[in-house]
């Protein structure tokens, strides 16, 4: 009944479910197919042969193949934000409601105005872009590029954010079988029966591979029946997983494979909580590549006309989908596969007008088949040209006695032989080797643990596939310590013989007329290869780049080998010596989303939150990213700008008390008999004299003598220290210390533990900070000025909970840092704020913190930039002369001691109202602002509420000797400039009186 709307659907046969019609649309036209169809088979069933326009010439294109190699039938799948360009209709599984649109046409598929490109093609042959658009340069952006962009392209990307989700997963197995055809199934069954853990990945949505497309019988039953029996057996094996719709796309070191599982591409949209794609990392001890083979087109005139198809694909549309791809066919081949193709076409009721065998009448198999079906056989003949615009109408052949003859047909089934699908064998730099007997590239050296079975070995006969599958499957399981018996199956398929020794490959038809395409997707013709050689680009890799051959989304699956063959013919060399282009992952296109997985948007990286984050959020904090951390930047009151908020926070701290969350600072717990000795070697300054109960500022160098990080280290006993690092450098410092402990001085008995996440820490700063802490720290701890002077450190309790208190200051005020186990962090901050109410305390964020440290001339990220020495930062005196430490020797290099190095200076704009920004370059007054005169740059700047003007820190050549000099601060990026006076970096309270208050 449905067949009325599907005029090319056969009355019976195929693996489609005629009881399950599916409605879909192509270019807005409502069409019906069946469950089990691909978009391509459903289009062919409905007589839709024109499905797209080519990339460069906008030539009408149809369906060439029935698999992943398809270069022509590329469509936009779905619409709106789910639109996926360059979807191959030949593998797009049909579902009810599928929407597909043709690409590269304007305004419509049948009437494409840009197909005029085809008429001017002599001007846009290979290399055309390189030559024509070179001059004048100014034309490129305004004229050439927009023009090319409009004309070319491979579909449009989705206009909006992808609404789907993607997943990553890892699997482990003994034996990975790649490919679900007869060889792959045989391998999986042979290995699975031994009890080995087996994963079988098949890119198709139905297991069976070539058994679905060819008529086959195995042990007296049909190939399809055998596949179903084996699939049932595999499903019942607990250690075997069969992953359908899963393409193995790459081979990586150590038995690691990448694979994309299309979880939802066959559904209108993903089911709830299901990803669209899942990217698998499969770790396998052994692997079997049973990926089959891809048929070769033949280059003759207009071989891209819709209706010119690969012969094996013609058989697949007949046998698997129950679709006749035409009414009247011509077969053109150089191998015995023509016999099976003829049988299948005849069985489907397709009128076969002729068999054109390019070989010189030597094939008994094909002649016999032709005679059996009463079909005209042209041995030693060639198809030279195809006719028909939007669809094939006839072909011209050149017979063995040099006669040209026109044969009307709407289908040409061509076969130039087969290329084993060996892409994965060369992902670890294995080189395929040309085999004269098979007239094909066969696997060269293989990735460790991989064996090859089935048609990928160069022999696609069903018996050979079953035998090589069983043997490799059992051998792989055996290598993993399993044992079993070798299964034996006997079979015969309609594709048998097609890989058997073509006398010679037929890459292109001599005397062909019209454009003879090699790479359909990149629109590369035989003439382009000729041109490439003439212009000196005859090496495989050069020709590929000159012509763009093999560079489209199909990566040249139907064209790379042919191009090599033609290059060899033109240059009179043999193909083996031309080498081959290198196959790289991925085997088939992988959506970027699948590689990103969950790492997108908010999940791009983990977000680290301070233990007091909830309270800070309640208090209206505005947060800023500091690495993976979110830190409170400022706490605006209604109507305040960030600057007003930060100013108020600074004034509150300097006038009373403020609290800043410094939980993000790195904290490293250092314990052991050699803890002090280790710290001595890590820091450049002296820690030998640091007594328990005291803290010290430490400066850490890299081995090359530059400053790595700084921070305060507290000593609790001779064997227990707690080091703090900057927020940004915490992971680097930890790794640096672990390296030096484990690799350089393993004899030191010391343990390092990062406790950054385990402790919440708050800076309590300002003249009233001690009074505030007295109300929070338990009474038995004396924190009076005399008992707990500057740089004291002690273990204390807060409401009975162990805490650590250090009297240290970044702000320059009387200040403390109090740390408490993370789970109490939020409570402690609430309690500090509650007790602080009487003192007018406020929370302050990183903006106020930065302002205060710049006012004090303390260095931070802008200055600790990996290019500064201790001396550059005015900290040269810290470097101990009495000990060895990391960075000591190389800090003595002349360039690091050059007195003209840029050093830390303070900068004051002469115009009090003007702002100096970090990044501005410093140039001596009266000199031009250029690279030669560049003497340094501004590293940090802030508006100082205490000074009532902008202040800045910078690195300036010989800066130590230039106090009082006026220099230019030039900011060409923002187009500003101001005059600044060099001063001491300590802008506020330079004598440090407030610290000791």
């Amino acid at each position: 009944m449905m067949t009325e709307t599907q005029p090319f659907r056969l009355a019976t046969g195929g693996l489609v479910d005629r009881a399950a019609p599916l409605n879909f649309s192509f270019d807005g036209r409502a069409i019906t197919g069946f469950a089990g169809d691909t978009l391509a088979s459903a289009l062919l069933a409905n007589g839709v042969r024109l499905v797209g326009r080519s990339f460069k010439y906008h030539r009408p294109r149809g369906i060439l193949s029935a698999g992943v190699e398809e270069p022509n039938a590329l469509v936009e799948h779905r619409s709106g934000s789910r639109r996926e360009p360059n979807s191959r209709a030949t593998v797009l599984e049909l579902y009810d409601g599928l929407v597909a649109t043709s690409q590269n046409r304007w305004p419509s598929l049948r009437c494409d105005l840009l197909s005029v490109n085809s008429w001017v093609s002599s001007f846009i042959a290979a290399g055309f872009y390189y030559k024509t658009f070179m001059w004048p340069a100014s034309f490129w952006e305004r004229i050439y590029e927009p023009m090319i962009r409009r004309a070319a392209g491979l579909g449009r990307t989705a206009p909006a954010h992808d609404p789907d989700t993607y997943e990553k997963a890892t699997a482990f197995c003994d034996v990975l079988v790649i490919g679900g055809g007869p060889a792959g199934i045989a391998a999986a069954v042979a290995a699975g029966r031994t009890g080995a853990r087996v994963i079988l990945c098949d890119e198709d949505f139905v297991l069976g591979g070539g058994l679905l497309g060819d008529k086959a019988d195995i042990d007296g039953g049909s190939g399809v029946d055998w596949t179903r029996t084996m699939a049932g057996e595999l499903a019942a094996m607990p250690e075997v997983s069969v992953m359908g719709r899963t393409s193995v796309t790459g081979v990586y070191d150590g038995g690691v494979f990448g694979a994309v599982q299309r979880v939802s591409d066959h559904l209108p949209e993903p089911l709830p909580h299901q990803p669209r794609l899942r990217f698998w990392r499969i770790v396998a001890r052994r692997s079997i590549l049973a990926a089959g083979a891809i048929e070769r087109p033949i280059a003759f005139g207009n071989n891209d006309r819709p209706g010119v198809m690969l012969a094996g694909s013609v058989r697949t549309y007949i046998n698997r989908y129950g679709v006749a791809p035409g009414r009247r066919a011509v077969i053109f081949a150089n191998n015995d596969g023509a016999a099976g193709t003829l049988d299948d076409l005849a069985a489907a009721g397709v009128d076969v007008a002729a068999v054109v065998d390019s070989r010189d009448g030597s094939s008994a198999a094909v002649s016999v088949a032709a005679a059996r079906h009463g079909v005209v056989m042209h041995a030693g003949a060639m198809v030279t040209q195809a006719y028909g615009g939007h669809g094939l109408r006839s072909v011209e052949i050149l017979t063995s006695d040099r006669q040209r003859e026109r044969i009307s047909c709407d289908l040409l089934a061509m076969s130039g032989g087969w290329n084993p699908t060996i892409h994965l064998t060369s992902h670890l730099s294995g080189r395929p080797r040309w085999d004269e007997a098979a007239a094909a590239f066969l696997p060269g050296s293989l990735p460790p643990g991989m064996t090859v079975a089935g048609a990928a070995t160069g022999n696609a006969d069903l018996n050979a596939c079953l035998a090589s599958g069983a043997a490799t499957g059992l051998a792989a399981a055996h290598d993993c310590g399993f044992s079993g018996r070798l299964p034996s199956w006997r079979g015969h398929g309609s594709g048998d013989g097609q890989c058997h020794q073509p006398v010679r490959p037929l890459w292109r038809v001599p005397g062909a007329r019209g454009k003879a395409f090699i790479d359909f997707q990149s629109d590369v013709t035989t003439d382009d290869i000729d041109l490439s050689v003439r212009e000196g680009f005859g090496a495989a890799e050069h020709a590929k780049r000159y012509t763009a051959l093999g560079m489209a989304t199909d990566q040249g699956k139907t064209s790379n080998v042919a191009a090599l063959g033609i290059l060899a013919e033109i240059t009179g060399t043999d193909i083996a010596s031309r080498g081959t282009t290198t196959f790289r992952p991925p085997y088939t296109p992988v959506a970027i989303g699948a590689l990103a997985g969950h790492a997108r948007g908010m999940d791009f990286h983990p977000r680290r939150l301070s233990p007091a984050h909830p309270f800070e959020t309640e208090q209206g904090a505005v947060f800023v990213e500091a690495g993976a951390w979110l830190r409170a930047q400022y706490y605006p009151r209604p109507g305040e700008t960030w600057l007003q908020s930060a100013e108020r926070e600074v004034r509150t701290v300097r006038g009373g008390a403020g609290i800043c969350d410094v939980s993000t600072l790195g904290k490293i717990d250092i314990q052991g008999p050699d803890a002090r000795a280790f710290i001595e070697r890590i820091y450049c300054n002296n820690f030998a004299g640091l007594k328990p109960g005291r803290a010290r500022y430490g400066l850490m160098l890299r081995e090359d003598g530059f400053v790595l990080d700084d921070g305060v280290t507290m000593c609790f006993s001779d064997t227990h220290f707690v080091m703090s690092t900057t927020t940004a450098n915490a992971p680097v410092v930890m790794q640096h210390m672990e390296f030096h402990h484990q690799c350089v001085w393993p004899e030191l008995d010391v343990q390092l533990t990062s406790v950054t996440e385990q402790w919440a820490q708050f800076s309590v700063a300002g003249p009233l900070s001690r009074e505030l802490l007295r109300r929070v720290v338990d009474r038995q701890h004396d924190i009076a000025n005399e008992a707990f002077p500057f740089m004291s450190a002690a273990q204390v309790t807060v409401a009975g909970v162990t805490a650590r208190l250090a009297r240290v200051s970044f702000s320059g005020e009387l200040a403390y840092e109090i740390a408490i186990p993370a789970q109490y962090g939020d409570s402690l901050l609430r309690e500090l704020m509650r007790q602080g109410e009487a003192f007018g305390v406020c929370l302050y964020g990183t903006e106020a913190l930065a302002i205060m440290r710049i006012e004090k001339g303390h260095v931070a990220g802008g200055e600790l930039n990996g290019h500064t020495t201790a001396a550059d930062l005015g900290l040269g005196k810290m470097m101990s002369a009495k000990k060895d430490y990391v960075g000591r020797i190389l800090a003595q290099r002349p360039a690091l001691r050059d007195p003209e190095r840029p050093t830390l200076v303070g900068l004051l704009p002469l115009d009090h109202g003007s702002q100096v920004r970090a990044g501005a370059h410093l140039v001596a007054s009266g000199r031009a602002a250029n690279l030669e005169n560049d003497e340094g740059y501004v590293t940090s700047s802030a508006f100082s509420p205490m000074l009532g003007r902008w202040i800045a820190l910078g690195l300036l050549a010989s800066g130590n000797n230039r106090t009082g000099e006026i220099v230019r601060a030039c900011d060409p990026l923002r187009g500003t400039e101001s005059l600044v006076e060099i001063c001491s970096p300590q802008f506020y309270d330079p004598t440090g009186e407030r610290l000791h208050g």
Partner: protein
Amino acid sequence: MRIHCPYCGERGVEEYSYRGDATVRRPDANGPDALERFVEYLHLRDNPAGSHQEFWQHLHGCRAWLVVQRDVRTHAIESVIAASRRVAR
């Protein structure tokens, strides 16, 4: 690539971080030619086409620093030991 951590077993390379040549040893800082030796230690590297000794850290695992013997042409790993277990010079 997969690396067998002596403490954690075989893990994917994504858990590790690479540092480089593990044949170099930090020189004696008090030696007469310390400056030259340190420049070599930090900057001069052999680049053998073949087996190479490298430092890797099991960063997203037990954090052990490892000495990995690896053929840089094939990425085949010949041995892995904990750096702290190396015999001193």
